[in-house]
């Protein structure tokens, strides 16, 4: 009933696998996906382990609603200790792979140890094989998916895989599923690569059932309608998330040229309108929109590159359509590196998906490299003869490919911004928290976002809290701590259901609760659900404490704490972290050093 009540545990060192029953006590306390995956991770590994060593544990986790008719039921999470951050990593993805895991009968897949040789998993319901990946190692994601489907004569297989970046353990390598969806952040793909695991291919015929089908379908129909009618949803369908680039440009929170500025002069060339306007050759970037499994929003973009553009003019193999620009990609391959060439951005995004890397971390790392270059710290000789100046579209395209393939200066960029800037003696140019690069929002212009970035358990992340309303109503750091805390708990709950965060464009908490209550055994109330989210947040925090992180890591770079925003609505402001953090710790029921108190732990049954 919603959960399949089965976990697949794979020992990659020995090349064996077995199934075990899902721990229902944990499922009832943590729901699924992010929460349940965090519990399993906490209980199955020592958080002090080397993230790229065999003792790191990699978990693919679905939610109880994954694979049902609830809208957006395609989500799953990939969890481990993150090589980028040395903190807990929990990366969320959509597409079709997660639902297929459920259809094959599994709530979670736990991967332990390290395979002596490159392998991939082939799963058809109860049949689980660990097969040699000799023909795949060294190849990109697109080749890998095609090869596996044709090798097994099974077009119904859904594939989650790594590209060369994961094999080479680029610190921010990701897992790609269904060609262009990603469990993007924190280097979960590098962990898969460190285990010599190239791919998981899965097909299932068991189906997913729910506890009260009649009530469930009634609630599903109501929530579909509610979501369909919401203005936020309509915007996401029409324009995708890149609507945000115009919003942030207008607000003055769009990180530009490694966060030196908060507005970018080139947004008109890479915004949603540019994507549908014919260029000088009559080429239109955007082709259509696309949905993940079960999704009635369809925010995904499908795009193609102008055949005459310098990036692909002699490369027919890149003339086909693939994943287009959504906001984070556009910001990280655009303003933060100063580039406004939509075809160059699209090509760089193709590289991210084909070779398996997080565009956010790549872009912000490249931005730091550009700043080092413009300072004269890096020279052309070191950067393979490429002028790494802000705005250089050729540099963006070339370095995206080199980083994906592990060539030349791309190997340096693959270290991530924290390690790279430290290597060249300028750690202050790293724009991120706990080793993970910021997303497309500047903390000086959005105070609650800054607090969220600083306290997110997986390093700087824009998706773990939701205080846009509060941030845009009041540009000061006042009254931000409680909303950040409350939204973090709420989001942690949503991330545990198997549904997509973007449903919040139309749904309130009660809509998630109703669907869980109808689908899952037992009584699920708003209180129970939100408390589960808080429990998940706190358990993530505890994993990090055990890994060696402290309150001192809940900080922001000097640039955001001391250099005022040069323009926009928050011109003259810095991030007021010093004011917000004590309020936040108090709201959480933590000590002044940021440790959960015994009282808080007892309340959450931790």
């Amino acid at each position, binding site marked *: 009933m919603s959960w399949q009540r089965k976990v697949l545990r794979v020992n990659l060192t020995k090349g064996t696998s077995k199934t075990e029953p899902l721990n229902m006590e944990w499922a009832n306390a943590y729901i699924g996906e992010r929460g349940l995956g965090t519990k399993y991770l906490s209980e199955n590994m020592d958080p002090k382990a080397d993230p790229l060593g065999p003792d790191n544990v990699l978990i693919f986790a679905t939610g109880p609603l994954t*694979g*049902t*008719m609830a809208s957006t039921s395609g989500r799953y999470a990939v969890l481990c200790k993150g090589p980028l951050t040395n903190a807990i990593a929990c990366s969320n993805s959509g597409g*079709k792979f997660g*639902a297929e895991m459920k*259809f094959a009968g599994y709530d979670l897949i736990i991967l332990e140890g390290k395979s002596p040789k490159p392998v991939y998993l082939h799963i058809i319901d109860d049949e689980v094989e660990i097969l040699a990946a000799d023909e795949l190692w060294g190849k990109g994601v697109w080749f890998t998916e095609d090869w596996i489907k044709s090798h097994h004569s099974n077009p*119904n297989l859904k594939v989650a895989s790594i590209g060369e970046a994961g094999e080479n353990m680029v610190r921010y390598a990701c897992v790609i599923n269904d*060609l*262009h969806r990603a469990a993007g952040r924190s280097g979960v793909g590098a962990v898969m690569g460190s285990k010599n695991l190239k791919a998981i291919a899965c*097909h*299932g*015929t*068991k*189906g*997913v*059932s729910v506890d009260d*089908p009649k009530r469930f*379908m009634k609630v599903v129909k109501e929530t*579909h309608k509610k979501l*369909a009618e919401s203005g936020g949803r309509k915007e996401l369908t029409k324009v995708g998330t890149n609507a945000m680039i115009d919003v942030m440009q207008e607000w003055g929170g769009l990180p530009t040229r490694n966060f030196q500025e908060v507005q970018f002069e080139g947004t008109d060339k890479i915004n949603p309108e540019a994507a549908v306007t014919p260029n000088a050759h009559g080429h239109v970037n955007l*082709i*259509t*929109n*696309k*949905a*993940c*499994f*079960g*999704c*009635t929003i*369809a925010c*995904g973009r*499908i795009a*193609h590159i102008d055949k005459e553009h310098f990036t692909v003019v002699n490369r027919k193999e890149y003339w*086909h*359509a*693939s*994943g287009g620009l959504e906001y984070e990609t556009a910001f990280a391959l655009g303003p933060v590196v100063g580039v406004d060439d939509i075809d160059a951005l699209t090509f760089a995004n193709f590289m991210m998906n084909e070779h398996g890397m997080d565009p956010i971390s790549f872009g912000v790392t490249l931005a730091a490299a550009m700043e080092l270059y413009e300072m004269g710290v890096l020279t052309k000789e070191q950067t393979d003869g490429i002028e790494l100046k802000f705005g250089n579209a050729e540099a963006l395209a070339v370095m995206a490919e080199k980083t994906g393939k592990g060539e030349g200066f791309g190997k340096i960029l693959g270290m991530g911004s924290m390690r790279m800037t430290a290597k060249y003696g300028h750690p202050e140019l790293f724009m991120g928290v706990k080793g993970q690069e910021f997303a497309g929002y500047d903390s000086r212009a959005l105070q609650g976002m800054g607090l969220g970035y600083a306290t997110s358990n997986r390093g700087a992340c824009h998706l773990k809290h939701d205080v846009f309303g509060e941030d845009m109503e009041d540009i000061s750091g006042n009254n931000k701590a409680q909303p950040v805390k409350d939204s973090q708990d709420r989001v942690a709950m949503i991330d545990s259901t198997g549904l997509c965060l973007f449903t919040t464009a139309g749904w309130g908490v009660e809509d998630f609760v109703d669907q869980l209550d109808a689908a899952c055994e037992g009584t699920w109330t708003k209180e129970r659900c939100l408390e589960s989210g808080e429990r998940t947040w706190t358990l993530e925090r505890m994993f990090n404490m055990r890994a060696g992180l402290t309150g001192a890591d809940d900080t922001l770079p000097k640039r955001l704490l001391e250099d005022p925003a040069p323009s926009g609505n928050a011109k003259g402001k810095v991030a007021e972290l010093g004011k917000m953090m004590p309020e936040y710790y108090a709201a959480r029921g933590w000590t002044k050093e940021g440790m959960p108190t015994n009282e808080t732990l007892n309340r959450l049954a931790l």
Partner: protein
Amino acid sequence: MQKSLLIDPDKCTSCLQCEMACSFEHEGVFNPARSRIKIFEFEHGKRAVPYTCTQCAEAWCLHACPVEALVRNPATGAVEVKDEICVGCKVCTIACPFGTVNYNPDTGKVIKCDLCGGDPQCAEACPTDAITYVDSAWTGYERMQAWAAKTDSKAAAV
């Protein structure tokens, strides 16, 4: 009035709600592997096309069946599988030129679209109207209308 499923691939986002609705209606669980309607994606999702049985007026499957397990529902016009008669010989799956009748190894019977007896759940579930249920005699109506709209030259000149 007999009705048919009308598919508009331009509107399909590949969400697969239809596959879940179909399997839920027929099997009681969400199981795209047992859906009678399938979505096919081309070129990294550039195009997504729902495809299923078109309920041929002279059906290869019906004529090929050696035990007369495939019968016409006069109310809906759909060709339906009589499970109690079907022996799983799969000759119908060979006979259908479109591949829309397939074998279910779990039950030993073949499965195909039966228009849900006149209330097709795929059309009900589709969030973009890529699948609609319309008068069989006028499936081309909207396309004709779209082209007719382009002919209004007098108004354009003014």
